[in-house]
């Protein structure tokens, strides 16, 4: 396929995804764009928002658009790891022999919605670690490789913290982005109400498929990026570490611990996709800076100084972006 043709298809695909998502989701443009970027980049996304802002609907709609096998796991405190991954069971065959066979869990899908992921116990949450990073599952000594593309879209509720288990840092690091779904405005609520009067179901149609997504990912990976931009991304990540010798003043003052190198990887990978999504064929400083907040906000922990100064994690990251020179 001609390169320009692939790029054209990429742009058209993005445009189609956005159009279809707008049929089910009102507003949340930034969240929508960043989810598309994460999916094409092959990363997982943690969606945070109060109940009713459309987290689950967004993921369900996305599964329809992408035309991929979709499964939803409602995380509860009594959810066991085998409930997620699947387990070996004893089954009698036609000849009456007893065989141990592996019954696949809901994780065996291309698009997995981990709803209210913080309600499951750490034991169950950790069952997601390997699958999110390696796209593989090991059960009973046997490793199963998941079909590509594979995404985990997890949601969590910032309120109602009783009976929840905050995700461990290691698992947080597996998410490319943490996206905040803000509460809609009054006019948006009106649109939401009108949209759901006919049916509560999703209306989006499938516009692309798994191979197309993989092709788009492959195309995005070839987007050129200069060393200065990579260095900028690295400096942003390193700038979150207060323990480093040349740590940024923001980190020294407001950050308890910083992001892992995975953050820099995520920044550059997603920046490449963002450049293409925005009609550019190279990564710019602006691409990296624009993605710094969703990439870093769940990977760093602010200290008491930030709390005392009424600064959120996003505020601290914004200060960091201002401090780090391009």
């Amino acid at each position, binding site marked *: 396929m001609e*390169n*320009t043709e*692939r*790029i054209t298809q990429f742009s058209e695909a993005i445009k189609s995804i956005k159009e279809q998502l707008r049929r089910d989701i009102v507003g949340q443009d930034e969240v929508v764009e960043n989810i598309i970027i994460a999916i094409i980049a092959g990363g997982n996304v943690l969606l945070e928002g109060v109940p009713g802002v459309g987290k689950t609907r967004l993921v369900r709609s996305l599964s329809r658009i992408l035309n991929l096998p979709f499964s939803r796991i409602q995380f509860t405190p009594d959810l066991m790891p085998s409930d997620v991954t699947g387990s070996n069971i004893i089954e009698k065959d036609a000849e009456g022999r007893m065989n141990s066979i592996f019954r696949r869990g809901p994780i065996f899908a291309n698009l997995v919605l981990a709803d209210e992921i913080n309600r499951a116990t750490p034991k169950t949450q950790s069952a997601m670690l390997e699958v999110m990073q390696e796209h593989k599952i090991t059960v009973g000594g046997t490793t199963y490789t998941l079909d590509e593309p594979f995404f985990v879209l997890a949601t969590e509720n910032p309120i109602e913290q009783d009976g929840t288990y905050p995700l461990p840092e290691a698992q947080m690091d597996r998410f490319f982005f943490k996206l905040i779904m803000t509460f809609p405005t009054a006019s948006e609520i009106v649109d939401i109400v009108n949209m759901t009067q006919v049916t509560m179901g999703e209306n989006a149609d499938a516009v692309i498929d798994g191979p197309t997504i993989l092709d788009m990912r492959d*195309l995005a990976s*070839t*987007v*050129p*990026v*200069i*060393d*200065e*931009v990579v260095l900028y991304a690295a400096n942003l990540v390193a700038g979150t570490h207060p323990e480093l010798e040349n740590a940024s003043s923001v980190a020294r003052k407001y950050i308890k611990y910083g992001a892992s190198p995975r953050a820099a990887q995520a920044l550059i990978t997603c920046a490449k996709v963002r450049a293409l999504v925005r009609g*550019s*064929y*190279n*990564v*710019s*400083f*602006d*691409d990296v800076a624009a993605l710094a907040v969703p990439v870093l906000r769940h990977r760093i922990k602010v200290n008491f100084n930030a709390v005392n100064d009424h600064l959120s994690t996003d505020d601290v990251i914004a200060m960091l972006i201002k401090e780090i020179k391009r």
Partner: protein
Amino acid sequence: MSDGLNRFGRRLMFFAIIKSCIYGASCGVSIFALLWILSKREIIVLSPLVSALIGLGVALLVGGVLFLIIRPSRRRVARYIDDEFGLGERAQTMLAYVGESGAMVEVQRQDAERRMAEIPDSAIKFKRIWASCVALVLALSFIVCGIVVPAVAEELPEIPIIDGYEKNWRIAELKQLITRVSSDRFAEEGLRDGIVDNIEDLIDAIESTEEEPKMKASAIDTVKKIKAMLLEYNSSESISRAFLGSGDAVIETIGNAVAKLSDSTLTDAFVDLIDAVDSASDSSIVLSLYASKLSSALSSVSLSSDEDALYASMLMLANGINNILDGGSLDLDDLCEEVSAATSLAFLQQSDNQRISNIAMNEIIRIFSITDDELTEQGVEPPPSTDTDAPVTPPDDDNNDDLTGDNTGGYGSGDNMVGSDDSVYDPDLDMITKYKEVINKYYTIFDNQSGEISEEIAEIARKYFDLLLTPEEMK
């Protein structure tokens, strides 16, 4: 290679050359001007050519170094394009991937080229043009300063200017002095006329200028002329100089008396002369010696007895001694008395001459505030001072005084000097004193000695005092 980058590169290179030239030239010109100014002010010693060469060197150095610093490399050009025109690192990415193949790289290159091609040449601005202008203006300012700042050697001294008020005051004072000199009844008329002429010449001279140095020079010249005139009219100085060079103590004492125009000193000298003759074992030899030395000293003075009374009286002494040696009727005592009487009148005349000359000279010195140093510099010995109450500066102009009038209270036309507070040179005391005191002293001497002097001399003296004293004072 990219056409867009080349296009930008050429333009930025042109700007860099221009900028380097401007800053280099500005620095060079500034350094040259600075060195020039310092040389002119003699802070350093450098010829203009050397300063220009140093300036040229600085210009080349600064321009060259600056060009090396700001010359647009391809990376710098790409960065400039991205930053200046918001190309989102397109140009830098294109440059970084030069030589690499790949579909996306090719698309990116085309995209970057297209974006750069959309930027017109006119959009490529000469950055910070104001800084270049400031550098040029500073350099030009330095040059202007270099032109304006005068060299130390060329610096003209500030000429003190006398304002019209003070000038008029000086003229008024000089006119008053003319009146005072011309109305003097004792100094010789020729001398007085000469002094008046010189003062009038001085008035003419200061009327033609406002510059203090010129006025002072004219005034000092006038003082010099008056001094020369006094020497012309008064033989005392030439005679005394001749006597002082005789090598004899008695004759030198006579010379001192002549110089001072002092009767008493002369009397003392004659007493010494008589004592020397009387105490000698052979008086004729001593007399002969004195006659010889006196004659020799007088012969060195180019005067004649017809013209000068003092010279005549001194010649009378020398001839009288010769007469005594030849057996004449007079003895030495009588001779000395006669000579004293004759000398006294000459002394009186020359004292008056000296007095009026000194008054004129001191007045001119006062009016023009001439210091002794200024006189000495011009080879003029300061005249003996005369007491005066006249101001050394013009009076206040608050009441618009008529400066041409007589407003000093000094001696003027029609004034009677007797009893006044005016000053006069007293040859006996060798100092300036009140005229009243001098005239009274001489009158007392005259009155007391009337029986001892010849009737002829007494008559002359009487007439003299009659001239001075008012009828009331006569009584």
